[in-house]
């Protein structure tokens, strides 16, 4: 850092232009996080991937990060300061950073931006990447359907956006297929990370009879509550087994490392191009944590079979016939959901009794 500053300022004093990357300089890569690196969830997985990057490239890269960045003016400022300080690749790791990443990208055409889970790509130095979490949700839905004794599954949801609704639908369809009597109770907490609210929601769901909890929020609080109350739960984003060794059935893992390494390599080789990827089990961006011992052998085998079939492209979690909640047909027999439908999903499938809040 110091050397770069010195070079830049002395060059400026002499009125010389410095080339953005000197050959032996490490590539500077910035990460903008929406939560704290210690959330044991979403941000923790991105930071784990950042550490993988450091390990993989050694002195070849220099990574830096800023955590708990609110979207909007703050995120835009953080990214601008990263661009100004010589970062050549910036990972904006939250849905809400989209407009900010695009604004900064417009002003720094030589800096590359990678935006997680977004949909706006206004400039050719903005790339999008996302994981097919619904594939993981299908498998945990199946396990939940098999494991529940009260036939009630509690779901702690964050915001009613397509990503979350897609997850609820995927989990519900497969829980229902495994156990036709299953019912979903859904509580919206309007936050990605709020341990206190998530814990309250978990308690409320257990009081309503749920004996399996799922969450689309990032803290480990629901796992701890499940452990205390002797019910089961699924971790989110990273392996949360330490917070509830008995309760934790498995977790949907986000594995960003390989993608980050691939993209950084592309910048080093000058082959980076803006893309739009949506990876799942097949590419390893989605994985499941080790299954809890309490899951019976046959359910375990079914789960593993599902993962293999999805990874091989033989099975799509949204395969018709599927009706919308109001009974109108969505997918015909044998038809699989187009990505566009999934990415804009704003309806529940037939059988879910709750309503999407508006």
């Amino acid at each position, binding site marked *: 850092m110091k050397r770069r500053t010195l070079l830049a300022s002395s060059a400026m004093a002499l009125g010389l232009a410095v080339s953005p990357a000197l050959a032996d300089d490490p590539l500077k890569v910035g990460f903008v996080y929406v939560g704290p690196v210690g959330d044991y969830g979403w941000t923790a997985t991105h930071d784990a991937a950042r550490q993988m990057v450091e390990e993989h490239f050694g002195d070849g890269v220099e990574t830096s990060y800023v955590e708990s960045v*609110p979207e909007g*003016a703050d995120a835009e400022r953080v990214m601008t300061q990263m661009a100004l300080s010589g970062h050549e690749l910036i990972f904006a790791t939250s849905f809400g950073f989209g407009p900010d990443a695009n604004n900064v990208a417009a002003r720094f055409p030589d800096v590359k931006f990678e935006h997680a889970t977004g949909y706006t790509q206004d400039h050719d130095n903005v790339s999008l990447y996302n994981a097919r979490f619904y594939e993981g949700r299908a498998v945990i839905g199946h396990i939940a359907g098999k494991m529940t004794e009260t036939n009630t599954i509690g779901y702690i949801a964050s915001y009613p956006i397509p990503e979350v609704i897609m997850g609820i639908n995927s989990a519900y369809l497969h829980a229902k297929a495994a156990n036709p009597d299953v019912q979903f109770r859904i509580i919206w907490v309007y936050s990605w990370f709020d341990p206190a609210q998530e814990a309250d929601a978990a308690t409320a769901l257990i009081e309503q009879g749920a004996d399996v909890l799922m969450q689309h929020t990032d803290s480990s609080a629901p796992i701890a509550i499940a452990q205390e109350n002797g019910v089961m739960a699924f971790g989110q984003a990273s392996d949360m087994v330490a917070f509830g060794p008995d309760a934790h059935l498995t977790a949907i893992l986000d594995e960003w490392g390989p993608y980050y390494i691939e993209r950084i390599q592309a910048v080093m080789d000058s082959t980076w191009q803006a893309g739009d990827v949506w990876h799942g089990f097949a590419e390893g961006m989605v994985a499941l944590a080790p299954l809890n011992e309490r899951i019976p052998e046959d359910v375990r085998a079914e789960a593993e079979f599902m993962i293999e079939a999805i990874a091989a492209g033989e099975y799509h979690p949204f395969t018709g016939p599927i009706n919308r909640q109001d009974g109108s047909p969505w997918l015909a027999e044998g038809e699989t959901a187009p990505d566009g439908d999934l990415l*804009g999903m704003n309806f529940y499938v037939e059988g879910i009794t709750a309503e999407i809040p508006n």
Partner: protein
Amino acid sequence: MIRLERRPAPSRFWTAATPVLAVLLTMLAGGLMFALLGKDPVAAIRIIFWDPLFNPQFASYSRPQLLVKAGPLILIAVGLSFGFRANIWNIGAEGQYIIGALCGAGVALAFYPLEAWFIFPLMVLAGALGGWAWAMIPAILKTRFNTNEILVSLLLVYVAERLLAALAMGRMRNPEGGGFPGSRNIANYPSASNTELIANTGMHWGVVTAFIAVIFGYILLHRHILGYHVQLAGQAPRAARFAGVNPDRLVMFCLGLAGLLAGLAGMFEVAGPAGRINIDFGSGYGFTAIIVAFLGRLHPIGILLAGLLLGLTYIGGELAQMMLGLPSAAIQAFQGMLLFFLLALDMLSNYRIRLKPREVA
């Protein structure tokens, strides 16, 4: 034995010297914390306080950003300070800020895509009225039913946040946004945009309004009978009543003013730096402004300086995270130390420290 002796009047010297001393003590204690975290303390302090202002790589960008960050804090804190002086505790500026933004954005989105000169002034009016009206709820409940304004104003923040979420996902959602929550970009809508008045200065209408609020706040507090009433009501409520201060009217005025300014801050933010209504729009300016108000000793000029100082620690704190890998919690602790030392040293302006030999029994 150390003894504290009350000064007959606050010391002028210490009133001016304590903020400087507090900043120095924060640097020392903060530096120690950074050193314990294994980071170079001198570099960290330099990055937080010096680099945003003078580093050739950043300063041309971060100096204007300082105004962008401090503007809403100052605007809200000036409004809050009047109530706090009169013992009227509006803790809900965050809610008034959100409602002001929603009203301002509502006007903009209603007229979209019409281009006309009157849209922005109408938005300003709507933002101010929205914030004012939201603050009138605790004001009326207090004057009519004697409810506690601390609780009511705070709880209304959560109501405002829910309203924000509902509108971001419902009525205000961008019809061209593919079903995702969040409104159209208002900053890109010329008639409604709160743009930089002079390029690359960070000066937008919200910052200008904050400066005007500081000047008017100063005049109101020191040159106007209302300011006198506010001070009197806080220091001697009984005397204030004898002097003809109507406590109900004072509650209405203080809460209303704070709501109005918070609403304006929200409206300028949504039309400019934030750019659009979204679920996470309220990022805590309304709460941070409470700290700014007290850091600035509830005095308009003090608030101006406090807002800039806190803005500096935010921007410098981000730089320190980025360049040294400091955790954001360390930056928050650092900001907490600053507040702690300022308030603790406040004692020096009101008390004298006397060293007396122990008396022999």
